[in-house]
């Protein structure tokens, strides 16, 4: 079976707000695909459209070859969907939840143990606990189990790691890698740029548009400018000073440091140092660094805004 997702010119708007603007996207069978973008980029809307929960304004999409609007019944049989908000029955225990979803799909837990075993062993100790009383990471693992219980061909995960601690996050991604090896096409939406590196291909999204579509390394490679990281005592003042610099191309705050690119290709770092010194900032640490996905996203999103 060819578990592809192909999206053609898909648009969706809520009243005056257009949430998706003519999206085109092809996801290969068995791919671990990431939709990366901030809140409001249109990730959830895209997922709900693919999950046949919303109707598009225009355009079309097909999952496993089934047309999204007309053949929605078929899609609902082969799709595993995990909404962004924890959507299991909080008053039911872990086991009862899993049992319920198994019966809904006309199957049994035992028949699908192979699929969920790796995840199930982690939550099994809590199987008699009400789902509402689980920790954030456990909830997500249970939700993933419930979404997998019917052996879906395509798995849509909407921000599965939001609100989950760092350890559980990496465990979660480990599980996705394991699932991928079973041949499921997995589409993950996440606002965390660092998770992009864990996907095979990613689409960077903003304001309902796809800014870039490539493998994480491809996206990073497309970052053409030299990137510098600045660190100073007064980070905020540093940011203001760099913004006021006449040759600034982009400057963004990254935690304790400031990432900077210059408009000139052949620019000399000492000029900038002198400039900062003249502004009274003597002790600035400057390093040239390799760009990350987030830098790429920032650059693309800036480019996108300028074009408009």
């Amino acid at each position, binding site marked *: 079976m060819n578990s592809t997702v192909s999206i053609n010119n898909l648009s969706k708007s809520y009243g005056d707000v257009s949430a998706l603007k003519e999206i085109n996207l092809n996801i290969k069978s068995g791919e671990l695909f990431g939709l990366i973008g901030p809140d409001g980029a249109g990730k959830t809307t895209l997922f*709900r459209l693919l*999950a*046949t*929960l*919303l*109707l598009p304004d225009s355009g079309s999409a097909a999952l496993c070859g089934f047309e999204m609007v007309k053949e*929605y*019944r078929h899609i*609902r*049989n082969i*799709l595993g*969907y995990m*909404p962004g*908000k*924890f*959507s*299991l*029955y*909080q*008053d*039911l225990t872990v086991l*009862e939840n899993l*049992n*319920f*979803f198994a*019966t*809904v*799909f*006309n199957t049994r837990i035992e028949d699908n143990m192979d699929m969920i075993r790796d995840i199930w062993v982690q939550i099994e100790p809590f199987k008699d606990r009400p789902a509402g009383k689980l920790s954030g990471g456990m909830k997500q693992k249970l939700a993933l189990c*419930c979404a997998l219980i019917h052996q879906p061909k395509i798995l849509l995960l909407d921000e599965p790691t939001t609100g989950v601690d760092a350890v559980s996050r990496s465990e979660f991604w480990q599980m996705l890698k394991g699932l991928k090896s079973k041949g499921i096409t997995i589409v993950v939406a996440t606002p965390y740029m660092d998770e992009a590196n864990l996907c095979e291909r990613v689409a960077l999204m903003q304001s309902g548009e796809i800014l870039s579509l490539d493998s994480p390394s491809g996206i990073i490679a497309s970052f053409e400018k030299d990137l510098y990281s600045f660190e100073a005592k007064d980070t905020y003042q540093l940011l203001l000073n760099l913004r006021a610099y006449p040759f600034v191309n982009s400057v963004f705050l990254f935690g304790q440091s400031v990432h900077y690119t210059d408009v000139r290709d052949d620019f000399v770092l000492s000029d900038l140092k002198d400039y900062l010194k003249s502004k009274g900032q003597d002790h600035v640490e400057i390093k040239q660094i390799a760009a990350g996905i987030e830098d790429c996203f920032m650059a693309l999103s800036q480019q996108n805004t300028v074009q408009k």
Partner: protein
Amino acid sequence: MKRFIGFLKKEFYHIFRDKRSMLILFGMPIVQLLLFGFVITNDLKDVKMAVVDHSKDEYTSEIINKITSSGYFKLVKSLDGIAQVDELFRKGETKLVLVFEPDFGKNFIKGSKASVQILTDASEPNMASLEVNYLQGILQNYNLEINRGKIVPSQISTQTRMYFNPNMESVYMFVPGIMATILMLVSAMMTSISIAREKEMGTMEILLVSPLRPLQIILGKVTPYLFLSFINALVIVGMGYFVFGVPVLGSFALLMAESLLFILMALSLGIFISTVSDSQQVAMMLSMFALMLPTILLSGFIFPLRNMPVPLQIISHIIPPRWFIIIIKNIMLKGSGFEFVWKETLILIGMTAGFIGLSVKKFKIRLE
């Protein structure tokens, strides 16, 4: 079928694990019935009254005796004059004053015509007119007794018999009314809330993405409440019969069949409400205001419909409990068969079909 049973199991877990649902389901019918049956009663008992006796003769004291021995009234004060009445009523304890004219006895015997005056506190109009009626009844009885054996020229003597409720027990009226209210509440409110909860918690999203059909979801939601409401109907009729002595004169099977029909109607109304509300709050408010108040006020449960202004009477026609109350009163109190209630039954069937049609049409297979 396995899917359906799985769904049912889940619904029962929800109901039995939620204390609030359990309380509404099983606590409320019993509490309401006891409350209406024992506490809120329109029957007179020991109404405090005072007397202004300007005559003070054997007739007046005999009349006062008759009144106090009836059990309906209790003499608490003897006043010297009319002037004190105003103050007495303002204090609020005493509701009724009986005034005998001077020389009451003499006039009664010689002139064969004596007057008493009844003064009452009409700030509670229904009770006031009820008290006056009872008091007049006692006076009339006394009159008859005195005149027994004498030839009284052309007098109409009335003999009253209260059909279907000989002792005028108000609980006869409350049991059908409470049955309608409770079934409406449990069925409509609980289903609408439980569907709205799935929407609110986001679980509806998952149910929709699953291969479950809308009809399967609706049936799964409705069946537990159909079952529980039916138990409630049995409990109410049973309590009415064993605790309050409200009879079921007609066919018990017919009564239960009509109750089932009404429950179905309320359930379909509940589903309809849930299709237009996105949160439990909205569903609850809609059920409370759109169902509870009309059920209590406009169904003829407490307030007689024929005394209402015409617009309200017209509105009352679309209030389903109105028809259900007519049906169960007929069956329980009058022992009527189906031939007397088929019209009302037909109306309920029509309403049920209407609501089911509307809900199926409005139930969304998607999120919008």
